[in-house]
């Protein structure tokens, strides 16, 4: 299997645009809708594409897709592009627990939350995928976005994002256990691998802290609501009129603040926490790509070793003077010389691709983090502005207690 190298005009066009940071395609995932009943039920999501790129027949169109369709898309892209060095964005995780609740028809807030979490994750997944200039060219991606009917993806268990990552990790382990140390002629790769390793660790730590924050913020919201009710009751039983009124107003303020906490927890999660978990999984894909390069090197190395063996065989046959065996040996030598050359070409190609991919990835990472973190800080600003409004309204009420 080799990477589809289709250097047509529009691809170059897109790559140039990518360098200039102008990407004229926007994907939205919306309107989750439950289809069917019981354990065979599933959620269908609307995937809307808005674009002015010439390779699409329309400028705006939408289709209905289910979760396994997304997994199917990812598995196709991964199987085509991962092993030649492209960083294919991973699909969102499967969740048996979350999905079962939805199927069984639990219309509570936790299943609504789950569906929203998934919808947002699917949207981010598609946005990342179309931002990739090579993947954007892929016919499977185009079919996913455009076709009204899509063949059901089967065996998505094995092909889920987690499944692919498991395969990648297994390959990584196998590579690590190799006793033949790769002669890293290029320090860049070793350096980059170490950097991604460190980044992974740090992101995981940060993610854990942010998850704790989300949890505590939700707790704070619940406790604030409980206090608000209690303060209202206290205000009711207070027999000094002005103080009673002030306590009721305090209860109202705390109720509004509870709302604020809920909204902030939402932002904590969807902006900050999910960004981090997305990147933790993306970095796993990056690590996978580095490991594929090592496998590629190994293949080339093995071919060189085999070629050597074949030459030795030829020499032996010449000494033993067995003409038909000599011919066979010469054929095999030619075969393995070609393989060695191919191996070298493949290795150089994957190395080149990875360098470019890592450059693109890092640029995107910087952009993503800056954008999302600024948005998150703006949500914090909003919260403080609201708090100021609420307390400014309450202060004269407290002063009015006489």
């Amino acid at each position: 299997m080799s990477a589809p190298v289709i250097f047509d005009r529009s691809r170059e066009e897109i790559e140039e645009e990518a360098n200039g940071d102008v990407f004229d395609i926007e994907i939205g995932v919306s309107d989750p809708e439950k289809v069917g009943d019981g354990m065979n039920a599933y959620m269908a999501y609307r995937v809307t594409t808005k674009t002015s790129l010439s390779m699409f027949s329309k400028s705006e169109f939408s289709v209905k897709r289910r979760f396994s369709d997304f997994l199917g898309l990812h598995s196709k892209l991964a199987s085509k592009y991962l092993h030649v060095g492209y960083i294919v964005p991973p699909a969102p995780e499967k969740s048996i627990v979350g999905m079962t609740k939805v199927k069984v028809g639990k219309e509570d807030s936790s299943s609504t939350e789950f569906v929203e979490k998934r919808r947002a994750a699917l949207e981010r997944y598609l946005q990342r995928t179309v931002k990739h200039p090579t993947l954007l060219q892929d016919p499977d991606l185009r079919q996913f976005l455009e076709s009204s009917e899509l063949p059901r993806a089967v065996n998505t268990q094995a092909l889920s994002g987690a499944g692919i990552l498991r395969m990648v990790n297994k390959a990584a382990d196998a590579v690590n256990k190799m006793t033949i140390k790769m002669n890293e002629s290029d320090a860049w790769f070793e350096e980059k691998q170490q950097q991604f390793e460190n980044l992974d660790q740090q992101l995981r730590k940060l993610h854990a802290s942010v998850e704790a924050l989300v949890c505590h913020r939700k707790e704070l919201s619940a406790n604030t609501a409980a206090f608000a009710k209690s303060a209202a009751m206290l205000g009711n039983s207070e027999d000094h009129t002005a103080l009673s009124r002030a306590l009721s107003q305090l209860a109202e303020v705390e109720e509004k603040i509870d709302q604020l906490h809920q909204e902030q927890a939402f932002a904590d999660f969807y902006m900050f926490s999910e960004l981090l978990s997305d990147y933790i999984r993306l970095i796993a894909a990056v690590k996978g790509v580095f490991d594929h390069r090592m496998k590629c090197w190994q293949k080339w190395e093995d071919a060189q070793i085999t070629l050597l063996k074949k030459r030795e065989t030829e020499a032996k046959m010449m000494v033993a003077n067995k003409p038909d065996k000599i011919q066979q040996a010469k054929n095999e030598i030619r075969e393995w010389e070609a393989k060695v050359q191919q191996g070298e070409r493949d290795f150089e190609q994957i190395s080149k691709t990875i360098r470019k991919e890592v450059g693109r990835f890092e640029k995107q990472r910087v952009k993503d983090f800056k954008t999302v973190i600024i948005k998150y800080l703006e949500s914090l600003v909003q919260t403080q502005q609201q708090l100021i409004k609420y307390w400014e309204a309450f202060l004269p009420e407290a002063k009015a207690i006489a």
Partner: protein
Amino acid sequence: MLKAINVDLQSDAALQVDISDALSERDKVKFTVHTKSSLPNFKQNEFSVVRQHEEFIWLHDSFVENEDYAGYIIPPAPPRPDFDASREKLQKLGEGEGSMTKEEFTKMKQELEAEYLAIFKKTVAMHEVFLCRVAAHPILRKDLNFHVFLEYNQDLSVRGKNKKEKLEDFFKNMVKSADGVIVSGVKDVDDFFEHERTFLLEYHNRVKDASAKSDRMTRSHKSAADDYNRIGSSLYALGTQDSTDICKFFLKVSELFDKTRKIEARVSADEDLKLSDLLKYYLRESQAAKDLLYRRSRSLVDYENANKALDKARAKNKDVLQAETSQQLCCQKFEKISESAKQELIDFKTRRVAAFRKNLVELAELELKHAKGNLQLLQNCLAVLNGDT
């Protein structure tokens, strides 16, 4: 200014009491009680003694047990200094030192030490408020035990209650609550006291609930502030290790989280002080007011019983004089308690309203101050980050 944190008290030149110093030792806290007085009862005009928590309790209990003070709201005893939780946290931190970076360890240690200090300041304030309330009370300030407490510069040797005494207390309380059931069923002829009883019973329960909920709320606030701490540390680590130009960005945001965390911790501490502590204090005060009502009801029951006994004696024409004297005493006691109780309950309301007003105003002002501080920090940070990109 630790003086009168929760309660607005008027102190005058005749008698001023405060806790000028305190020392936290392993198991106990030693309070330096400082008195300034122009009263002739004391040998000097200004003097200090060292007291421990048990001695405050002894003083409080002596008021409660004194029949002459049955008609007053006895200022509630300060709660026992409790550093257990804080000490445990400091110990856990010491044990976990190996598992975190030096910066993290230093940060957390500073935090826990600040927490310890805050608890310490609070316990000092609560002991001080108790003394100030006594000093401000026109009758209690003259109490002999109080003067001994203030002046006697030796240990008062009031060891904590032994097992037998604790059991006696337990039974006393049981009887009291059984009585409470009987007595509260009796409707009061006096509208004022009837209203007060209904009011206090409900108020006490609701202030208890509000106090507990407020506590939980301030604790969640603190947990969230602690998370900001860890997030700041992680962002710092990211900033120092990243190979791209985003490292400056991370460092700036890390700095923001460190600063904003300090503010959030202050918000939690101020809510604790102005709201939770206020509610806790009035929980104890409303209990003391309930106790007063109980004592009055008891004396009413005694009075009514004495009346019945007098009627019986007159009917049998036996021990009439004795019964008459007893009835008169009960009547006097009941009327004395009712008179002072009425004034005490009116004062209680005045104090309560003043305290709530002061603390709610201060709470709102502090919340505003912190929110504005936070907003400023965030806007400054955003300005820098946006200018960079």
